[in-house]
């Protein structure tokens, strides 16, 4: 979706402000939110792409004015309500009032912690040969799905070169909408900065994205 989360190339957000000796969490609740998201995801309530989609669909003014973990919290709460793991009445009351929904992988208990500290695997067997080879010129498609996609707006319509082939991966556009993993070939595609930003762009700049095959046409 063409949301405010798709920030590449936007102007007006000001300077980057690094914080010296930044703590891992600024408030304790942030750590609880992180842990709940990780736990409920691991228990099978949602996948990582769905959780990203719920953050992206926060109203633009909420997205832009909320801290990072506040966005995580708001996305989590909404997602769990929509998926039927809790109800609005329960959230309002602050207590469970309805029977629990069965989690695909069961309750998240202490025995599950070790496995979530290992990064998940997203590579899948290839359903078809790769369409593109390293060195091929490709054009990012001019598509604007209203649902989740990982093709940023700033490259759409532009021509780049395939630089790496990462194999077949879970396709976020499908997984986010709970339409299955639908594995697709994944490539690093590199664009000239001036092709993206015009003649005033930095002539020394090259930008790459990781693009799934359905995002690309031959050029």
């Amino acid at each position, binding site marked *: 979706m063409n949301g405010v989360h798709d920030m*590449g190339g936007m102007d007006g957000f000001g300077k980057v402000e690094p914080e010296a000796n930044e703590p891992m969490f600024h408030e304790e609740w942030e750590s609880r939110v992180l842990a709940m998201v990780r736990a409920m995801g691991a228990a099978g309530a949602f996948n990582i792409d769905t959780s990203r989609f719920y953050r992206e669909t926060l109203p633009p003014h909420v997205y832009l004015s909320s801290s990072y973990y506040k966005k995580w919290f708001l996305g989590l709460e909404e997602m769990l309500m929509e998926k039927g793991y809790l109800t609005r009445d329960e959230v309002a009351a602050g207590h469970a009032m309805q029977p629990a929904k069965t989690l695909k992988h069961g309750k998240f208990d202490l025995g599950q912690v070790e496995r*979530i500290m290992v990064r998940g695997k997203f590579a899948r067997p290839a359903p078809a040969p790769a369409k593109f080879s390293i060195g091929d010129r490709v054009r990012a498609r001019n598509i604007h799905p209203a649902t989740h996609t990982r093709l940023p707006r700033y490259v759409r319509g532009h021509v780049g070169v395939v630089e790496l082939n990462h194999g077949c991966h*879970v396709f976020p556009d499908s997984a986010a909408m709970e339409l299955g993993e639908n594995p697709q070939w994944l490539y690093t595609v590199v664009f000239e900065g001036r092709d993206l930003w015009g003649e005033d762009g930095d002539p020394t*700049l090259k930008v790459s994205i990781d693009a799934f095959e359905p995002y690309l046409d031959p050029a």
Partner: protein
Amino acid sequence: MSHDHDHHYDHDHSELSETELRVRALETILTEKGYVEPAALDAIIQAYETKIGPHNGARVVAKAWADPAFKAALLEDGSKAIGTLGHVSRVGDHLVVVENTPRRHNMVVCTLCSCYPWEMLGLPPVWYKAAPYRSRAVKDPRGVLADFDVTLPKDMEIRVWDSTAETRFLVLPMRPEGTEGWSEEQLAELVTRDSMIGTGFPKTPGAPS
């Protein structure tokens, strides 16, 4: 570790913010419904606080500086090479290591959310996840670097890697001069988090840290 649910909220201040109350309520509901065990949440947080962090990435970079065969393997297949170091946090299958050279500087961003090599660098800093960096890194990286007091030669290529999939990128910075004969442990002390994102350089030998 205590299983007492309320112990996370033993703050000095008597008033809880609206967000704190809502987070607390959500955890109560998830616990009462039997979805999560609070002690497991405690353990997740503890694991993030102790097991991951830039020290993991620094060891990898230092080894690459000291060991040409490891460096070659790391650039060929980052996940596989790091997998041979038993003591470093497990990074999964999709880590790509990109090398800074005298001609090319690499910088990593996630314009769409906050993708970041957690196992190598820990949880990302706020600036990495915030709008100014995500919006400008792909369009005006030299301007972003100026915010970090970093200046590159005018003719140096800048390559920005936008982390739009589950691949993760780690920058291998150039080894500082004046470190000949240093041990991997000494070298690791020079490797900063930002130098592995591409928004900074390693420390200079002898400079105050």
